[in-house]
């Protein structure tokens, strides 16, 4: 890809700013309580959006047939494992095992 350096530079900037600025600036100041309360809803919303935009779609179209869209069944399993173990490693291992199995069957 010719434009990979543009991509990398852009990603580096937009990744570093949210990591650096709050730690550098807010060590002296306090953030407003309502703003920080609102911020606690950002991660849950963005992860839900990312997961939903992926698992309910197959080849770019909405598909909730678990035989064709083989991401659905492993996702149920991953949610249960994540809830039970709270472990990133277990969730990924079980999820990958599940989808590899289904990819082999269908």
């Amino acid at each position: 890809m010719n434009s990979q350096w543009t991509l990398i530079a852009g990603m580096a900037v937009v990744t570093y700013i949210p990591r650096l600025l709050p730690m550098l600036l807010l060590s002296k100041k306090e953030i407003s309580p309502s703003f920080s309360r609102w911020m606690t809803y950002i991660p849950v919303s963005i992860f839900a959006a990312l997961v939903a935009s992926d698992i309910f779609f197959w080849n770019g179209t909405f598909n909730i047939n678990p035989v064709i869209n083989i991401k659905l069944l492993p996702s149920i399993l991953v949610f249960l494992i994540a809830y039970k173990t709270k472990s990133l490693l277990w969730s990924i291992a079980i999820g990958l095992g599940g989808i590899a199995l289904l990819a082999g069957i269908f």
Partner: protein
Amino acid sequence: MNIETIKSGVKISSPVMISYIALGVACGIVLYDAGVTVLGIGIMSFFVYAGAGQFLAASMIVLGASIPSVILMVFFLNLRHVLMSASLSSFVKEKSIGFISLFSHVLTDESYGLNYTKFRDGNWSPEEAMAMSLSTYATWVISTIVGGAVGSQFQVNTIIMNYALIAMFSCMLVLQFISLEHLIAGLVSAGTTVLLMVLIQHNISLVIATVIASFVGYYLEVRKNRRTKPDIEGSNEIE
């Protein structure tokens, strides 16, 4: 930084290092598949160091997204670090700008989780936090390069590799269900995303859904607090 500090930092990070090896190799494979060179993958991991962001970039490029739209999505994805960075700031107040500049670069969801818990419970120094974070950083950079090299030599099923990201996001999502309001925000976001994706078929759907759902969650929390607070105030004063 002495040997003992490094040892205690690295000891804590070993579970994260194992998951970074697995995820890093998978991420390297999908990035190579998306057209990033092995050198590019190494440089990206070194200067960007954002597992979720790098995976997202790979899957968006494969779907034909433009560079600016990828960068915008990565930015929104990384906004979650604002809170983490802010919450760690009080523990590194005494440190130099140089220290903070490096320490904030190696802030990830996992390193934050470990460091915050350790700092909160006491007996954890910024140096140990730095050693811990640097060890996971090095693991990620090396693993993604290995993944890129593997991807350049073998044909790997990228549907399966990309699913590593979805499984990781799903786990992070479940970990965010800290109250009923957060659970509702997640459901609103998921529903809105699917609806918008079907209607306008554009990745901006995720951003719109995130903004709507975060305000819905916050609104519900404010309403709940308003409903419970007047009882407490009412017992003390009559208006």
